[in-house]
C-alpha cells in the first residue's frame, strides 16, 4: 500500500475531528426500564465514520476519496495497537489480586467459551449464515476480540463483519440486555447468586457494571461480596481473555463451524 495514501492528511484530520467531536459529546446514559442504555464516544465515532464513508454517500468522496478509504483498512490494524498497550497496563498492577482470586474463578473462565455453544449452531443451521458466524460467536466481541479477528482475517472479511455486528449490538444493547438477563435469572433462584456474580465478569466494563448492579438489586444484603466476585472475575477475563479466545475459543469455533457445515445444505455461503 502506498505510504502517501496511508499518511493522507485528510484521512487523519477527519479522524481527529470526528474523534474529538465524539469525545466532546461524551458518554450518554439513557435509563430504560430496569437498566440503562450506555452510549460511548467510540460508537458515535463509528457512526460518523460510516456516514462520511464515500462508499455509502458518493458526495463524501470530496472529503475522503475512495482510494483513501481503502487505505484506512490496514490502518485499523495498527491503530488498535496503542489501545492494546493501554489495556495491558491495567493488568500488570493488579497481578496479585488476579493470583489471589483462586482456582474457582479461574475455571469459571471456561464458561466464557459458552458464547458459541448455542449461538453458533443457531447461526449456521437456523439462520444459514456463513463465516460471519465465526467472528460473531467465538467471543463476546469486545475490543481485544476485535483485535484478534482483525489480525487473523482482517476487519473487512466475513469474520470481521460478524464481530463488528455483534460489537455494535453489544455496545447499543449489551448493557441493557445484561441487566435484564442477570436480574431475571437471579429471580429464578436456580443458580448460586455468587456464581451469577462471577459470570458477570465477561470482559466489558459497562456490561459487568450493569450485570452486577442488577444482581445487587435482587439480593441487596450481599452487595459487597457480589461486587468483589464480579470485579475479580472481570479482571481475570481481561488478563486471560485475549489468550483464551485466541488459542482455545477461535480454534473450537472453527472446528464446530466445519462440523456444522458438513451437516448443512451446501448453498449457505453468502452471495452478494
Amino acid at each position, binding site marked *: 500500500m502506498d505510504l502517501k495514501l496511508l499518511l493522507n492528511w485528510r484521512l487523519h484530520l477527519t479522524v481527529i475531528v470526528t474523534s474529538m467531536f465524539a469525545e466532546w459529546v461524551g458518554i450518554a446514559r439513557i435509563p430504560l426500564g430496569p437498566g440503562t442504555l450506555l452510549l460511548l464516544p467510540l460508537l458515535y*465515532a463509528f457512526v460518523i465514520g460510516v456516514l462520511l464513508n464515500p462508499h455509502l454517500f458518493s458526495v463524501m468522496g470530496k472529503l475522503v476519496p475512495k482510494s483513501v478509504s481503502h487505505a484506512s483498512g490496514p490502518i485499523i490494524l495498527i491503530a488498535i495497537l496503542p489501545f492494546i498497550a493501554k489495556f495491558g497496563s491495567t493488568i500488570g498492577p493488579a497481578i496479585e489480586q488476579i493470583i489471589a482470586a483462586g482456582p474457582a474463578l479461574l475455571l469459571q473462565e471456561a464458561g466464557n467459551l459458552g458464547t458459541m455453544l448455542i449461538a453458533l449452531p443457531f447461526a449456521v443451521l437456523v439462520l444459514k449464515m456463513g463465516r460471519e458466524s465465526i467472528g460473531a460467536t467465538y467471543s463476546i466481541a469486545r475490543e481485544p476480540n476485535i483485535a484478534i479477528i482483525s489480525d487473523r482475517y482482517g476487519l473487512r472479511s466475513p469474520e470481521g463483519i460478524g464481530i463488528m455486528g455483534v460489537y455494535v449490538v453489544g455496545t447499543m444493547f449489551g448493557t441493557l440486555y445484561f441487566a435484564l438477563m442477570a436480574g431475571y435469572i437471579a429471580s429464578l433462584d436456580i443458580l448460586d447468586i*455468587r456464581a451469577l456474580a462471577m*459470570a458477570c465478569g465477561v470482559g466489558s466494563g459497562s456490561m459487568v457494571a450493569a450485570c452486577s448492579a442488577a444482581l445487587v438489586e435482587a439480593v441487596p444484603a450481599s452487595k459487597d461480596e457480589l461486587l468483589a466476585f464480579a470485579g475479580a472475575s472481570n479482571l481475570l477475563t481481561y488478563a486471560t481473555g485475549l489468550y483464551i479466545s485466541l488459542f482455545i475459543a477461535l480454534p473450537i469455533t472453527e472446528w464446530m463451524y466445519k462440523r456444522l457445515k458438513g451437516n448443512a445444505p451446501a448453498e449457505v455461503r453468502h452471495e452478494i
Partner: protein
Amino acid sequence: MKSNQTAVDHFDAEALKELRPENQLGKTALVLAAVCISAWFSNVVNGAPLLDALPGMLILYAMVMVGLGIGRACPFYLPSVAWVSLISIVMTLPMFPGSEWILEQLAQVNFLAVVTPVLAYAGLALTGREFAMFKHTGWKLVLVALLVFTGTFVGSAIVAHILL
C-alpha cells in the same frame, strides 16, 4: 459468484499478509505515529492536555514498537496484539523497574479515548461489499449477539455454581 467471492477472499488474505504490521516495521512506525497523533488529540477532551499526555502516548508508542520488533524477530508466530499486550503487562508489573512512573504517565491517557479514533478509521474503511453484507445479515446478527451474551453468562454461571 461463488468463485468471485473466493478470489476476493484470497486477495484479501494475501494483502493482509503483506500488510501485517510487523512485516514492514519502517512503514508501520510512520503510520503508528499518525494514529498515535489521532489518539493524542482525541484524548484532549476527556483525558489530559496535549503536553501532559505526551509522555504517556510516547510510552504506548514505544510498547507497540517493542512488541512488533519481538514479533518480527521471534521464530514462531504470535499475533502482534498478543506481543504488545504481553510487553505492556510486563512493563507495568509492580516488580518492573520504574513501573510506578510508567503508570503515572499512562494515567494521563484515557482508556476509551484511545479507541475512539480506531472506530472512526473502521467506519471510514468499510467498502460497498461490506455495506451490502451488513444489509443482508443485520437482523440475524442481532439475534446471534443476544444468544452469544446469554451463552457466556449462563455458561460461566453453571461452571461457577458447580464449583462453589
